[in-house]
């Protein structure tokens, strides 16, 4: 979900003064000089301060998965079973020593590393993992916020021995590993919350991750310190990690420049124009988000394929990118953002051709134009600007667009219940998507209103229950074709994540979803 970012004007101003100020600071030599003279030794306690757009609201992954502090913080406190590699092509075991599917994909066997302990010294056993997975499997209420994370993929969890569980999906599924386990929210909790009530546990939680909680002000600041009993000391490069919620994008950049922050997450996409100091290095990701014009394809006027084609050709993506997104981003080349697995780059080319658009409109049921209502989230300023550009693009075809800006809750309500004609929304990866069956993610995330009326639904159901590769690829192909036809949605622009860190940090790797393994960076 896109956070409302910034006022364009402010950033334009900031871009100017930011660079001016940076050079001033250099001239005056006022920027804190890096102390190269005292070479850091391994014995010196090292700390890192991470600024995110929000603090950790909760250590429960069901709640905090959308928060960037939560996403990077939870795997520090709770050892996750596995996690995607930085290019998202595979996953690696973290707490898991091995993850083995049966030959027919009907059972998945997970073995934990031996001799792991929780922060309080209790051993981590298969009972704890079962407790964690059962909690996920039974938490219907939160399934949607996990963005397709798959509670309904787990039918049963059986304890095999002290360190091993067997997971049974509803039907054989080749994707269960990446779907169910390679997610930061699957951090292992102690069984029965260590004998505490759930409320008390989340007030002062502990896990078996590389760091343990020292202090925490919800949604503001959390301090974690190295856990001495961790299984892989190489993943504990700092003695202390502080996660700070800094809601203002520009304050995060300034915090990096001043040296108050070592690492800043979710920077504005034009951060490179703002950062004025050589002490800050930026990490610019590949596109992992796409903004789309999403519509209901079984009610007028979008039930008419020629009408959809007319809209497809009538939208000027270059204007949209320049006008709504400050030119920061890419023209869409795929429905699935091109950096994510499953994207078939270049499968769709955004063509702007008014003559072609008029031809298609003439063949549609609305040769003289028509009208529809376009919903946007009030305050989502890039998309509100995009809506106006779309409005003027379509006015060329005598298609009158009424823009309605709604508070998020109402917008989401109408969007998910199909009570709309068209919306401006999009797909944004906030966690690593489960492997290449991104379509599943789309479908369960419910992005497409009354999507179940379309033929794609059948494909997705097949994928969900069987996970068979051939079906899956067919579904993606069908999906791409339909997108090219303008079914469901028309992609408008691709966006990407930006993070920044002080130059003295190295090994800072960001994956396309913006996730950084903080504890693996080095100073």
């Amino acid at each position, binding site marked *: 979900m896109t956070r409302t970012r910034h006022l364009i004007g402010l950033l334009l101003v900031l871009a100017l003064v930011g660079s001016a100020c940076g050079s001033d600071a250099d001239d005056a030599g006022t920027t804190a000089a890096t102390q190269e003279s005292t070479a850091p030794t391994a014995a010196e306690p090292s700390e890192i301060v991470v600024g995110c757009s929000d603090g950790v*609201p909760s250590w429960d992954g069901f709640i905090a998965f959308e928060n960037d502090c939560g996403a990077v913080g939870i795997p520090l406190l709770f050892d996750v079973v596995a996690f995607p590699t930085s290019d998202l092509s595979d996953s690696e075991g973290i707490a898991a020593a091995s993850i083995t599917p049966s030959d027919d994909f009907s059972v998945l066997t997970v073995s934990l590393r031996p001799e792991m302990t929780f922060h309080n010294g209790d051993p981590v056993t298969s009972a704890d993992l079962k407790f964690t997975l059962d909690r996920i499997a039974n938490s219907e209420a939160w399934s949607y916020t996990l963005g397709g994370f798959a509670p309904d993929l787990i039918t049963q969890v059986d304890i095999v021995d002290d360190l091993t569980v067997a997971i049974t999906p509803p039907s054989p599924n080749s994707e269960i590993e990446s779907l169910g386990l390679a997610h930061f929210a699957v951090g292992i909790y102690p069984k029965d919350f260590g004998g505490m009530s759930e409320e008390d546990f989340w007030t002062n939680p502990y896990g078996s991750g590389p760091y343990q909680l020292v202090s925490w002000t919800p949604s503001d*600041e959390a301090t974690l310190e190295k856990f001495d009993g961790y299984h892989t000391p190489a993943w504990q490069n700092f003695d202390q990690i502080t996660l*700070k919620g800094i809601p203002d994008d520009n304050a995060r950049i300034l915090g990096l420049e001043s040296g108050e922050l070592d690492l800043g997450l979710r920077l504005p996409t034009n951060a490179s124009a703002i950062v004025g100091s050589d002490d800050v290095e930026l990490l610019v990701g590949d596109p992992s988000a796409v903004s789309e014009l999403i519509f209901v394809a079984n009610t007028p006027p979008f039930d008419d394929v020629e009408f959809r084609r007319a809209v497809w050709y009538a939208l000027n993506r270059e204007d949209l990118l320049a006008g709504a997104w400050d030119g920061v981003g890419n023209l869409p080349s795929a429905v699935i953002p091109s950096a994510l697995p499953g994207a078939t780059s270049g499968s769709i080319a955004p063509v702007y051709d008014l003559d072609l658009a008029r031809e298609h409109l003439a063949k549609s049921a609305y040769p003289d134009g028509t009208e529809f209502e376009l919903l946007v989230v009030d305050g989502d300023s890039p998309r509100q600007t995009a809506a106006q550009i779309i409005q003027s693009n379509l006015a060329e075809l005598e298609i009158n667009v009424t823009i309605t800006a709604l508070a998020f809750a109402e917008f989401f309500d109408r969007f998910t219940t199909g009570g709309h004609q068209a919306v401006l929304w999009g797909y944004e990866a906030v966690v690593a998507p489960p492997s290449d069956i991104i379509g599943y993610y789309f479908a369960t995330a419910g992005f497409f209103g009354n999507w179940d009326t379309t033929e794609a639904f059948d494909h997705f159901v097949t994928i969900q229950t069987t996970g068979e590769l051939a079906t899956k690829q067919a579904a993606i192909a069908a999906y791409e074709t339909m997108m090219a036809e303008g079914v469901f949605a028309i992609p408008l622009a691709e966006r990407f994540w930006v993070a920044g860190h002080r130059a003295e940090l190295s090994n800072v790797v960001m994956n396309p979803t913006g996730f950084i393994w903080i504890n693996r960076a080095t100073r």
Partner: protein
Amino acid sequence: MARYGFIAKRVAGIVPLLLGVIFAVFALQHVTPGDPARLILGARASEEAVEELRSELRFDDPVVTQFVRYAGNVFQGDLGRSLRASKPVTSIIADRLPVTLWLLGAGVVLSLLISIPLGTLAAMRQAGWADHAIRGVSLLGLTLPPFWVGIMLLLFLALPTGWFPITGFGDTFSEHLRSITLPALTLAISLAPIQIRSLRSAMIEVVESDAVTTARSLGIKGWRLVSRHVIPNAVLPMITLLAVEVGYMLFGAVVVEATFSLPGLGSEMITAVAGRDFAVVQGITLVFAVMVVAIHLLADIALAFIDPRVEMA
């Protein structure tokens, strides 16, 4: 003695108001369209989960019963529990209230340090260049959005000098003081223009008043005239203005806290609203409302003590 009686009476007078405030805060979740349980759990939650939460939070009881229970809890200091942080709302508020009080207190002090000299100068040099300059600058201060002012202060003051932290509130008193300076200045810049205008016109009115003419006719002049006869009469409307401004200040605090990453009630309000953490939203709303009521009460009492014309019967 009359004074203590007066205070007791005024304090007693706000009890019905507080009940009204509690009712309004309670009503928040009932006037918000849709099922509150659904609102908490989100659109995709299953019916069973929503039903479970409904009965857990006892939303099915008659509204009056719910209100009595809510008000009873509030009076016992129980504002519920944060759904997300899993902590009692009172402990969240206790963590964050001091930051907001710091911000408001320092902001008001700074705004007065700005507005009293400037307002006085503008009034004394009425229609002179100083007056025009002050009016121009204060108009500018009024139009600049606080978050922009905040970022500019960070960019041009905090970053080059290193005197002020960019983020956070620190742990010690001196760190608090350093951390709060720029946020308070930002708040003060948004508050001062109205104060300057009010003070200026109050000053002009007072300077031209019969009482000051009388004092001048007796040979009283200079600082003595200003300090004994002009300022005391001119600050009376300022006290009322400050009380009226408090709502505006709280709004400003929300913005300023977000800009400077201060862990106050305002930034918590933003995240609680975004995270649909209803008990927290209610709790903070209640605290804000009580602050507004309390500050009006304080202003009333202060006025009564300063102005002998106010009947303390």
